[in-house]
Structure formats: C-alpha cells, structure tokens
C-alpha cells in the first residue's frame, strides 16, 4: 500500500490531485459538521451550483475558475444570509438566489459552448477535474482552506452555542447574527473549493456525507469535526487511488472519473453510519412488548 501511494505521488497529476483533494476534503469535512447540525444542507448544495455561474464567467474572461467560484459563491452566501435570517426563510432565500444565478449561469454556459473551440470547459466546471486541475491553484486553494479553518477555530464556541440553542446563546451575549453570517462565508469558500475539485454537482457529497456519518458516530462536536475530516480525506485518497487503478479497467487507458469514486466512498460511509446506528438502537426497540 505504501509503495502504491509512493508511486501515486511520483506522478505529477495524481500528486496535485491528492494534495488539492485533501485540502478540499478536510475543509468541507470540518465545515460540513456544522452545516449538518444547523440544517443548512440546501444552502450548501445551492452554493456549489451558484458558483458555476462565477466559474463560467471567469472562464469566459480568461481567469482561473477558482476565483469565479469563490467570488460568486461568497456573494451568493451573503445574499442568502441577508435575505433569510431565520432558518425557515433561509430555504426560500436560497431557492431565489439559486434560480437567479442558475439562469445567468445557463446563459454563460451557452456562450461557452458557442465559442469556436469550447474544449472541456463546461464539463470541467460541472463535473470537476481533479486530474486536470491547474497545479497553479494549489497555493490559493491551500490559502483559502487555511483561512476557512482559522475562521472556524475562532468561531468555534459561539458557533456551537448558536447551533445548539440560538435563543440562549443570544441571551448570553453571543452575536448570533454575525456568527451565522461569518459561518455562511466559511460554507461558501469551502463549497466553492470543492466544486472546483469534485465538480459543482458533487461538492455536496464532500460537504454533507462525511459530516453526517461523523455526527452519528460521535458524542462531542469536536470529535465529529475530527472524524468528518478523516472520513473526507479517506474518500479523496481512496478515490484518487481507484481512479488511477481504473486506467487498467475497460475501456482501457481511459480511466473512470475520480468524482464517481469519491462520491461512492462517501455514500458508503454514510450508509455504514446508518446501519451502525440502527443496530445500536435495536435493543431499546426490542424492549417494547
């Protein structure tokens, strides 16, 4: 196994894929725990789609899609949070911002396909391109990851408090509106990073999957964050390794998309946590006559 990973690391493309994939998985895994606990999965998913509009604009403008994803994602996140302060309104606000951005995105993607040489741009934006991602974005992705994790560390206790009991947190002097807004920024950056890597359509898997498994398997928020990061890393490393292997599978020398493997592993983690949970609860249910 070690030799196999060593051989993966010697290849330029897989090395970039592993490094960027790990950064993204760790960030999404940590943020994802709070997304799951706060019931913000829909916003998290929508932000990935919203980001594609930015990525398409960046592509048309000739700059790195990373900045398109992050720029528009942050704006979208701020929009959602300002429009819908309370949880119930937030879903509606998310839907409105999402439709608006998807409308613009559809137009931009149309422009992309009408260009003389559309290449793989539209596909890369929608489905991710961890193997073809420009190694030059490693630095910026690392920087954004560090910023998100730092923000999460600073927000940690007030965010836990606000998540657990917003009313009491507010009464205890937690600026809950500011905490929620800053956390929305963290979600936006984490999701857009992973949209770049796993693809906008699949970034939700990295955000929600490892986190919802980790939440079921742990008793403390801190433990859930740590486990979620580990499960995310596992999915990316295994996914990259399997994608590398798949060059030997039919159709020969083409390789299966890495996003497929990552999402399947995440799904497996989630299903295992459901099953584990079911068997743990069983004794209690059996006591009922």
């Amino acid at each position, binding site marked *: 196994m070690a030799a196999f990973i060593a051989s993966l690391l010697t290849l330029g493309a897989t090395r970039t894929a592993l490094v960027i994939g790990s950064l993204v998985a760790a960030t999404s895994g940590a943020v994802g725990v709070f997304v799951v*606990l706060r019931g913000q999965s829909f916003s998290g998913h929508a932000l990935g789609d919203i980001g594609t509009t930015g990525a398409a604009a960046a592509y048309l403008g000739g700059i790195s899609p990373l900045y398109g994803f992050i720029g528009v994602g942050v704006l979208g996140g701020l929009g959602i949070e300002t429009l819908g302060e309370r949880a119930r309104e937030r879903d509606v606000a998310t839907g409105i911002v999402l439709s608006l951005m998807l409308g613009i995105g559809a137009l931009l993607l149309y422009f992309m396909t009408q260009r003389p040489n559309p290449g793989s741009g539209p596909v890369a934006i929608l489905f991710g391109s961890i193997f073809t991602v420009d190694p030059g974005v490693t630095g910026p992705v690392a920087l954004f990851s560090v910023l998100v994790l730092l923000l999460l560390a600073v927000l940690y206790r007030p965010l836990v408090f606000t998540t657990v009991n917003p009313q009491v947190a507010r009464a205890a002097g937690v600026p809950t509106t500011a905490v929620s807004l800053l956390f929305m920024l963290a979600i936006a950056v984490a999701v857009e990073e992973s949209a770049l890597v796993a693809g906008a359509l699949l970034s939700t898997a990295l955000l929600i999957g490892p986190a919802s498994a980790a939440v079921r398997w742990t008793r403390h928020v*801190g433990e859930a964050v740590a486990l979620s990061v580990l499960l995310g890393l596992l999915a990316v490393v295994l996914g990259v390794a399997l994608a590398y292997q798949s060059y030997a599978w039919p159709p020969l020398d083409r390789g299966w998309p890495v996003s497929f493997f990552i999402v399947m592993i995440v799904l497996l983690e989630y299903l295992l946590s459901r099953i584990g949970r079911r068997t743990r609860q069983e004794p209690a249910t059996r006591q009922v006559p």
Partner: protein
Amino acid sequence: MRNLQPVAGQAQPVLELAGVRVSLGGRPVLQGIDLSLRPGELVGVIGPNGAGKTTLLKIILGLLRPDQGKVRIGGHDAQASRSLVGYVPQSYTPDPDLPLTARDLVALGLDGARWGFSLGGRNRRAKVDEALNWVGASSYADQPVGRLSGGELQRLLVAHALISEPRVVLLDEPLANLDLRSQDEVVALVGRVAHERGVTVLLVTHDMNPILGVMDRILYLARGQAALGTVDEVVRQDVLGQLYGHHIDVVRVHGRILVVGGPDVEALTCTTCDA
C-alpha cells in the same frame, strides 16, 4: 460556585422594572409593568396563553427593548448586565443525533460565548462537575442531550443556567410536558436555587398548583397587565376580576387553587388545572 445567602432584611432589589410598556407587531403586549424583586425570591409567573409571559422574560434578558420604562438588574441597565441573568427557554428539544453530552451543554453555559476553543483545564471541569452534581445530573453527565428524558433535560438546563453564577434565573415553562414526579423534582430543585443559593427566580407556568409550596410571590399576567404579591394577595376574586376585566371565581379545593370564570371559561380553567 458562589453561594449567595439571602441576608436578613436585605432591601436592595436585584431586578426592577418600572413603567415597562412593550408593543409587538404594532399591538401592545405589556403595559405599565412595575416590579421589584429581592435576592433569593422565587416568583411564579402565571397567565393564559399570549398574556406576555415569554415577552416579559425577553425584556429582562435584554433580547427585546421596551418602548417605555426601565429594566434594571443588580442596579445596572439590562443590556449591560446580561451575565447576571440565566435563562431556560420554553420547549427546548435538541436533535437526537446532536453530538453533545450533558457535560458539554453545561460547559457552554460557562464559556460558550467566548471566541475560539476552550483549553479545558481542571478548574473548568471541576465547575461543570459541581454544577451537574448540584442538580443531580451526575449519573447522565456523559449521555447525549438529545436522548435525555424531559425531566433530566430540565435539570440539566438549570445547571446550564446556573453555572455562570447569575443573580437572576428565568425559566420559561420548565414544567410543561413533565409527569407529576418529574414536576416535583424540578420544583424542588428550583426552590433550592432560590432559597439555598439566593438567586432570584422567575418561573413561568400555566398551573400555579405545583409551585404553591415553594413560591414566595406570584406575578399574574393577563391582558398585558400584571399583579404582583403573595398568593393570598393576588389570587382573589376582586384582584383577578379586575385584571381579566370580567367576573372570576377562585375556588380552593384539597389545597389546590382553581381560577374559573368569564366568557373564556375553558381557557381559564386550563390555566390552573392539571391536564
């Protein structure tokens, strides 16, 4: 934890409301509320649905600003003295999957408002253990909060509210959805909070009967107005009749008090009888 013994003859009020008036959505909810509570006093807040009980607590917490009037806690403006007030909200039900133990929840009451991580420390742990022990929650300290019974959760929320050593604790319907035994346990615990620790307690409940034995005074709310005094002073035909604005019967049977009457008989009956 600090143990504030009520000093005999201590006259300095902990909580004062003067001429408080609140409107929500353009409708007056509370008006002309005056009260002055002493340290270690347990006050039951009673009134029908929509009487403004939760609103009153939010005013004291500084979560709502009154349109008129003053709220002072420990001699300071309510906004500036949040750390002096502990709060147990109405109907709190954590998600069963929430990865948070009883101990974690109580610790949030201690330092959950501070930025960053907690560095733990023996002192912090000792404080949390002491609070858990004091409310009798040690046996389930490491259980996830989402899987506790209603009575266990209420005792825990009391520990959570007490651990920051407040001068005033506000409990919104802590007896709702509890069976009689759990009600008695929570009532006894809240009595100790006031009378052993000297914390002023405002306890909101629909039914005054479970707390008749521990409450020092009653704050009766109806139609946005309040009457404060001992049970014998307030729960009377004339006083409540004036508060509700129509005829009221106060019936005492087997040591229980029933408030009955008016056009809204059903609702009134249920504010004072066991379901």
